[in-house]
């Protein structure tokens, strides 16, 4: 069209005095007409897509990672507020009502435990927040030690462990409760649960340190090494809170525990046959990661060993987003309630708990990659000064708070 108009103009004998008008017509046609060939435009579009996919998501999802890693108060506070409010607003003892007493009770125990650990870690990093969060911690602790919260334990043992522990009965689920009480004891030494904390620790320590395999049962016939790690962590945290020295006992126990439950891949076996070291489940990332976090309170060397196995065996990364595989090499499975969703071999549980393990061992690079994934799938929602991870619910947010505020060894 441009060429035709030009030719008509010149053929008509118009001279240079009209060149300005001609030029504007030409320019107008230039701007209107696409200049790049289609193939070139497709290549440019693809290049733009690849460049932005490689850069933008990791920048958007990772922008708070450094703040969490450096324990920025405002960043921790935003999530801590929502978790504390969730616990205070909870009317009943349990958050979920599936009709399965075991799951309902255990999920409540986990929510309260992680709430106490997370808020406690915030207070340890920022003591000026003690008055803000101690009420929520006390509320969580009261419900944690209430036998009715996990009545499944009383069903299978006859009595709940906080009431009485029969000789020989494992009650390793108490590790979760006792670990939270240890955190409470650290920031509130005069807590009314101090006597219970001392009694549970003594009972659990006696069982753990006298076990030839280093294992005790969670429920009759069920031995789960990650639960045993919680028990050991609680004993270590009690020692720290009360000034007791249990290092020699923990060292001897750590050797037995590792030889019994640590797989050659470096992953922790998820479940073993009671009284033996025979595996009943695969070496799993979710159990390894949470055990590494728990053992940070009791035995840093064993915690480190688990973490190194977790990274060597399970670290996965794509475009700056990290995740952890659930099953060790040579093993497969569909996951379970501990692992959460398992997609392309990586699991929600292993990835989430690995956040805490990475913080515990000061691994900024891996923490940042894992955080990006948590941010992407957790869907953070900011309302004023409060942040919630919309996809997590009460349990997910409490877990994230504990993992994102973990203390570095």
């Amino acid at each position: 069209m441009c060429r035709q108009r030009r030719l008509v103009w010149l053929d008509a004998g118009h001279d240079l005095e009209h060149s300005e008008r001609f030029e504007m017509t030409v320019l107008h046609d230039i701007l209107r007409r696409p200049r790049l060939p289609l193939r070139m435009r497709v290549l440019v579009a693809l290049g733009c897509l690849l460049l932005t996919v490689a850069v933008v998501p990791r920048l958007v999802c990772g922008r708070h990672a450094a703040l969490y890693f450096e324990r920025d108060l405002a960043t921790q506070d935003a999530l801590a507020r929502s978790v504390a409010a969730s616990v205070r607003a909870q009317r009943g003892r349990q958050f979920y009502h599936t009709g399965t007493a075991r799951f309902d009770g255990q999920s409540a125990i986990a929510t309260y435990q992680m709430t106490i650990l997370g808020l406690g870690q915030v207070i340890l990093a920022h003591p000026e927040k003690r008055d803000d969060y101690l009420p929520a911690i006390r509320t969580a602790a009261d419900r944690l030690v209430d036998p009715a919260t996990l009545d499944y334990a009383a069903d299978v043992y006859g009595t709940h462990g906080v009431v009485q522990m029969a000789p020989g009965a494992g009650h390793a689920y108490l590790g979760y409760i006792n670990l939270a009480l240890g955190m409470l004891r650290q920031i509130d030494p005069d807590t009314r649960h101090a006597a219970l904390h001392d009694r549970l620790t003594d009972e659990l320590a006696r069982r753990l340190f006298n076990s030839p395999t280093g294992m005790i049962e969670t429920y009759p016939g069920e031995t789960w090494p990650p639960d045993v790690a919680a028990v050991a962590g609680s004993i270590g945290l009690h020692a720290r809170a009360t000034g007791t020295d249990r290092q020699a006992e923990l060292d001897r126990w750590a050797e037995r525990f590792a030889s019994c439950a640590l797989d050659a891949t470096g992953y922790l076996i998820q479940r073993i046959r009671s009284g033996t070291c025979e595996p009943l489940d695969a070496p799993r990332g979710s159990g390894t990661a949470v055990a590494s976090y728990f053992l940070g309170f009791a035995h840093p060397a064993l915690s480190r060993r688990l973490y190194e196995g977790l990274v060597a065996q399970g670290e996965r990364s794509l475009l700056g987003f990290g995740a952890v595989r659930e099953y060790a090499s040579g093993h497969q499975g569909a996951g379970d309630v501990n692992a959460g969703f398992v997609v392309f071999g990586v699991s929600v549980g292993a990835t989430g708990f690995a956040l805490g393990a990475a913080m515990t061992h000061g691994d900024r690079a891996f923490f940042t990659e894992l955080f990006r994934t948590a941010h992407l799938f957790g869907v953070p929602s900011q309302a004023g000064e409060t942040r919630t991870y919309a996809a997590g619910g009460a349990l997910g947010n409490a877990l994230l708070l504990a993992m994102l505020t973990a203390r570095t060894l």
Partner: protein
Amino acid sequence: MTPALRRVAVCAAVIVVTALAHESLVARIASTDPVAELLSGQSIATFQNAAALGLLRAFLMLLAPGWVLYSLLLLGHGYCVHRQAKARPPSS
């Protein structure tokens, strides 16, 4: 409005609308407990919300930045062509 400018405007409008829809959906999900809904049997609604949210986030994080960059590049290219044509002496 030139095609390039129109492309940028459409791109911006679509991204703004998508972002608003995303924030609205996130606020709705955050006001409930998706885990509780999933466990209480409301899995269809939960998965619908998750699918919608996933699509919106995928667009905003993966496609939208590339679209913006592509539109701006074409706009810039058009502007350069305009400058070159303007600087070219009129031919006789």
